[in-house]
């Protein structure tokens, strides 16, 4: 699908009264807005998730990534330094790297064999001087003027972030203290890849960005949680937001359940069945802060989760205005015992495309995409937990995380 850059129609988007408590459904279906997001948001002053450092263990390793619509390649050079650049040849724009992962001394475009070093600098141009003096590049050709368009990168707790903008502040400032601390808690120790897959969901990417910040829906939509008491809003827990409201942490302490009456009204709490195979939920305590369930979102499209003992990174990226690809990357720690790895395997049943407490998110956002069709000039209503963008310690019956997302979105998009 092509998104023309020529339509400046987003400028005619007027945000409704009510600020971040309202969202015009049109933002999920207007191609002009989608195109504008590519320029202002994904190429703007934000940090985009590119990959995990463990995916590039050796010098010469490279891996494909995507920033909005832009194809990107991340490399580790011979000195061990990580680089990222647009996977678009400086000559005529062909993809330079074709495989998801690879290892090479240099990056050579297959079309005309222009070759780049692992930092994206142009090293050689085939037939630059022609053949036997005929043809070739003009005398004044300056290789230094031609390179793979670079992204600035930063590695934080093993996560490789990239940005197109010089204005982006350092990752630690971008995250803020609270967010940085939680990422270090979950990813700070040496980890390793246990599995990965992806999902195509049929909705605009921002609906999933809302969904993962929506602590209100978790126990209502994902009834498995409630029924089997994995996670309920009447456990001690809350929503922590970064100061700018863009990032969030939804957490709970399983040990602290005191059943509250509110649940008697909730369909998903109406029955209570026991598992025939309870080993699914065998857990051990990994951290002494008592937090057993924690889902952290990093603006705009990254999620880090540790649910029971299921450690995973989620990343989602637009694949058109009403398609999004959602990647699930399952991790363990390098010092995990076999038994611990097995328990992570068992609990991986909770999340992912077939996750007992996540599969609903594969369709729910599509339901919004389809439900709002023909109602592009109506708005969503986001006043649960008030109208502010602020942490909500003690309660997750709030949409503060979603309001925080839109606050950041509007700042970047200038709407």
């Amino acid at each position: 699908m092509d998104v023309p850059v020529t339509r400046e129609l987003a400028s005619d988007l007027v945000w409704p009264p009510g600020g971040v408590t309202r969202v015009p459904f049109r933002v999920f279906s207007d191609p002009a807005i989608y195109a504008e997001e590519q320029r202002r948001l994904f190429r703007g002053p934000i940090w985009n998730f590119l990959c995990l450092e463990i995916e590039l263990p050796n010098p010469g390793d490279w891996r494909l990534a995507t920033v909005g619509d832009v194809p990107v390649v991340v490399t580790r050079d011979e000195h061990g330094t990580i680089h990222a650049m647009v996977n678009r040849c400086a000559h005529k724009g062909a993809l330079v790297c074709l495989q998801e992962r690879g290892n090479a001394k240099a990056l050579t475009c297959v079309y005309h064999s222009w070759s780049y070093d692992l930092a994206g600098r142009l090293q050689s141009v085939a037939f630059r001087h022609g053949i036997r003096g005929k043809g070739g590049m003009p005398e004044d050709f300056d290789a230094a003027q031609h390179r793979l368009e670079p992204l600035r990168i930063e590695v934080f707790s093993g996560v490789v972030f990239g940005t197109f903008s010089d204005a982006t502040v350092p990752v630690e400032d971008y995250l803020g203290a609270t967010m940085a601390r939680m990422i270090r808690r979950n990813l700070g120790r040496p980890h390793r890849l246990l599995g990965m897959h992806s999902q195509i969901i049929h909705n605009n990417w921002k609906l999933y960005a809302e969904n993962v910040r929506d602590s209100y829906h978790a126990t209502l939509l994902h009834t498995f949680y409630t029924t089997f008491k994995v996670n309920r809003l009447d456990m001690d827990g809350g929503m922590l937001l970064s100061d700018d409201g863009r990032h969030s942490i939804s957490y709970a302490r399983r040990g602290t359940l005191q059943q509250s009456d509110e649940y008697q009204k909730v369909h998903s709490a109406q029955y209570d069945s026991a598992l025939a195979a309870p080993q699914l939920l065998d857990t051990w305590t990994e951290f002494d802060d008592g937090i057993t369930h924690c889902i952290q979102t990093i603006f705009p499209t990254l999620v880090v989760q540790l649910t029971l003992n299921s450690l995973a990174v989620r990343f989602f990226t637009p694949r058109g205005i009403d398609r999004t690809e959602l990647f699930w990357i399952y991790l363990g720690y390098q010092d995990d015992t076999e038994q611990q790895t097995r328990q992570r395997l068992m609990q991986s049943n909770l999340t992912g495309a077939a996750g007992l407490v996540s599969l609903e998110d594969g369709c729910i956002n599509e339901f919004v995409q389809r439900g709002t069709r023909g109602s592009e000039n109506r708005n969503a209503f986001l006043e649960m937990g008030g109208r502010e963008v602020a942490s909500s310690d003690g309660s997750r019956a709030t949409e503060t995380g979603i309001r925080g997302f839109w606050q950041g979105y509007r700042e970047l998009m200038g709407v």
Partner: protein
Amino acid sequence: MTVREAIEELCADYAEAIDDGQLERWPGLFTADGEYQIITRESHDAGLPIGILYCDSRAMMEDRVRALRTANIYEPHAYRHLLGRPRFAPDGDGLAVRSNFCVFRIAQDGDTVTFATGRYMDRIVSDGGALRFRSRRVIIDSRRVDILLVLPL
């Protein structure tokens, strides 16, 4: 009935149970200690332990069926299986069996997609007079799943 016919019957019955929505019959086609895993070809080839879905026993499969009947929320849909010819060899007290498959998913509005292609890697044993899966490993060719996966493949 020859061994080949018995294997083909089991594989056809497995597909029929799912395609007809008789999911309660599905766990019974496995031994009590039967294993079931769905994993991408990419992860399988990389030898990664975690796939998309894993059951280490018939009981866990029964939990899956109960969850999708009572707890999970999704739009109604059905599958249609087309199976390739099983190829098999003796393996310990049972048979190592392999077959190709394609699963179409039909949405309630009629939209039909090629939901998954891949191969089954099975261990089939005789269990109380009938052939059953001691393990069925579903290796899907694609790295990705469209929308969600709730019915077994």
